[in-house]
């Protein structure tokens, strides 16, 4: 399997050049993309130029970063200067950011080779990428199924091998759930661990950029590359970060893993339940202590999450009015112009969420919805704190089911929201979570396991995830078209 760490070795050993590697991934991409449609735009020329620079550095005998020259791709809500950032919306279809997100600045200093921008649910609102206004991304395991979302393009690209790694963003599970659906690793860092500057906001107090990769080692490598305090993001956690590759130790002997019973509720598919039971057995065999824990308020997490996320979204998306960037539908006066622009520029789910978000903040409803949600958020955070005083990690499914067919849920907004039940609590509490492959469903679709850790506990997460990955090679499967010949 072509991973960052394996390809890095080949680059350093001069078995392959970065340009050759980039060309190989591009030609593989050209084979799978007609079916997968993970990308919204390409930057092959730029990628090859960057790869050439990496080759020159190698030729000069310079040390290169682990990610240098390894082709990746970026979710289309992260700004790269002079490349489109559409958020998969007609609103921003022709928007070209005049600046780089902080993570892109960081990655550029580490020899970033980005093949393009990846599809997503419009403005990251959704869990299947069906809400993209610009492309339909399919699941590399089964083209009739959704790739998950909102970072569906990121997960599908990594799974199908059209990118070795990708950046996604996670507001309520948008990295972890598509990673689960596509059989790859997705890590949502602690809120504030990775800079949000340049990430086009959906819900600012919940959004976080993170890696989608082919294995846990790669997740640690990408996290290393994008973590750090950023003075441009007021919510960025100060101080130095640890080297996350130090956590890649296959040893969980002294770890206590909590299993929150509320995450194993009625809606859980039998295949998923079975995979989780097997995972628990694996950890037991590896010497971890498994304890059942209860997070009684987590059942309210979904409601609190939607109120907070939509309230923030209604304000974050107010700027798209046709005045200084993005779509403009001409009209005689300003109110009409903004209304027409927004009504034509936003898809139905985005409009629904803006209306709801506006409603819960409006006079007379603020206390009943928004303020209550903020209080429930505190209760949930307290409950996690309490749990992490007793256990090192929590284990749960990432999603109640494997990938589903197109059109199955998209017309029932509430059913769609209920899909996020296992992932949203981490965003409310600001804690890190990882989804790793944990088996296959009876109809041959990947199932993801979620591990949650305390704030800034990514090291523990990675250690437990790495141990599982080493112990269960049967779960490390590559999608049918995902093997890149390099």
């Amino acid at each position, binding site marked *: 399997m072509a991973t960052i760490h394996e390809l890095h070795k080949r680059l350093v050993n001069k078995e392959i050049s970065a340009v050759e590697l980039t060309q190989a991934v591009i030609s593989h991409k050209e084979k799978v993309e007609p079916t997968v449609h993970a990308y919204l735009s390409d930057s092959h020329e730029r990628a090859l130029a960057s790869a050439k620079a990496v080759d020159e550095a190698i030729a000069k005998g310079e040390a290169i970063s682990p990610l240098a020259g390894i082709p990746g791709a970026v979710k289309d809500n992260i700004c790269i200067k002079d490349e489109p950032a559409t958020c998969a919306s007609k609103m921003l279809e*022709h928007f*070209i950011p*005049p*600046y780089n997100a902080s993570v892109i600045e960081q990655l550029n200093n580490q020899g970033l080779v980005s093949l393009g921008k990846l599809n997503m649910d419009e403005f990251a609102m959704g869990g299947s990428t069906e809400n993209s206004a610009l492309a339909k991304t399919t699941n590399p395991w089964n083209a009739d199924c959704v790739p998950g979302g909102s970072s569906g393009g990121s997960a599908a690209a990594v799974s199908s091998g059209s990118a070795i790694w990708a950046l996604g963003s996670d507001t309520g599970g948008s990295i972890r759930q598509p990673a689960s659906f596509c059989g790859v690793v997705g890590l949502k860092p602690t*809120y*504030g661990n990775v800079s949000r500057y340049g990430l086009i906001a959906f819900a600012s*107090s*919940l959004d976080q950029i993170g890696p989608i990769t082919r294995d846990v080692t790669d997740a640690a490598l990408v996290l290393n590359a994008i973590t750090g305090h950023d003075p441009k993001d*007021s*919510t960025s*956690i*100060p101080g130095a970060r640890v080297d996350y590759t130090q956590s890649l130790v296959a040893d969980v002997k002294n770890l206590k893993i909590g299993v929150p019973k509320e995450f194993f509720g009625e809606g859980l598919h039998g295949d998923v339940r079975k995979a989780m039971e097997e995972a628990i057995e694996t950890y037991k065999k590896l010497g971890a202590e498994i304890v059942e824990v209860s997070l009684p*308020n987590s059942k*309210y997490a979904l*409601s609190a999450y*939607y*109120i907070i996320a939509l309230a923030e979204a*209604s304000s974050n998306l*107010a700027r798209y009015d*046709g*005045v*200084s*960037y*993005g779509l*403009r539908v001409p*009209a*005689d*006066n*300003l*109110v*009409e*112009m903004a*209304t*027409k622009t*927004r009504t034509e520029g*936003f898809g139905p789910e985005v*409009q*629904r969420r*803006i*209306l*709801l978000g*506006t*409603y819960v903040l*409006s006079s007379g409803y603020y206390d009943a*919805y928004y*303020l*209550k*949600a*903020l*209080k*429930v*958020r*505190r*209760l949930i955070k307290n409950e996690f704190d309490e749990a992490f005083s007793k256990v090192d990690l929590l284990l749960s499914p990432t999603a109640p089911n494997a990938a589903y067919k197109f059109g199955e849920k998209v017309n029932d*907004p*509430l059913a769609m*929201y209920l899909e996020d039940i296992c992932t949203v609590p981490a965003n*409310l*509490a*600001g804690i890190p979570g990882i989804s790793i492959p944990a088996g296959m469903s009876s109809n041959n679709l990947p199932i993801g396991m979620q591990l949650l850790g305390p704030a800034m506990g990514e090291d523990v997460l990675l250690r437990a995830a790495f141990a599982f990955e080493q112990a269960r090679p049967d779960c490390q499967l590559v999608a049918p078209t995902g093997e890149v010949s390099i």
Partner: protein
Amino acid sequence: MKISQEEIKKIALLSRLEVKADHISTVEKELSDILSYVAELNELDLEGVEPMAHAVPLHNVFREDEEKPSLDHKLALSNAPEAEDGYFKVPRVVQE
């Protein structure tokens, strides 16, 4: 929790979104369903609970009062749907 059509019209105006007459009852149902679901929060006793607006317990994040270069003027206007003499141009502000 049911949202009225009157309220939908109000929030549509505040959101600068048009809800077409033949669509308003669909919106009414969709929003009401979701609002009914989230009304489960009313079950909780939240008296004295401190609201949590941020996921990180940070405070006093400042920058020094230092001038930094602004965007190149052309770049600043590069995404403008309509520009005139270095300004962003918009249609009339007042509705007739």
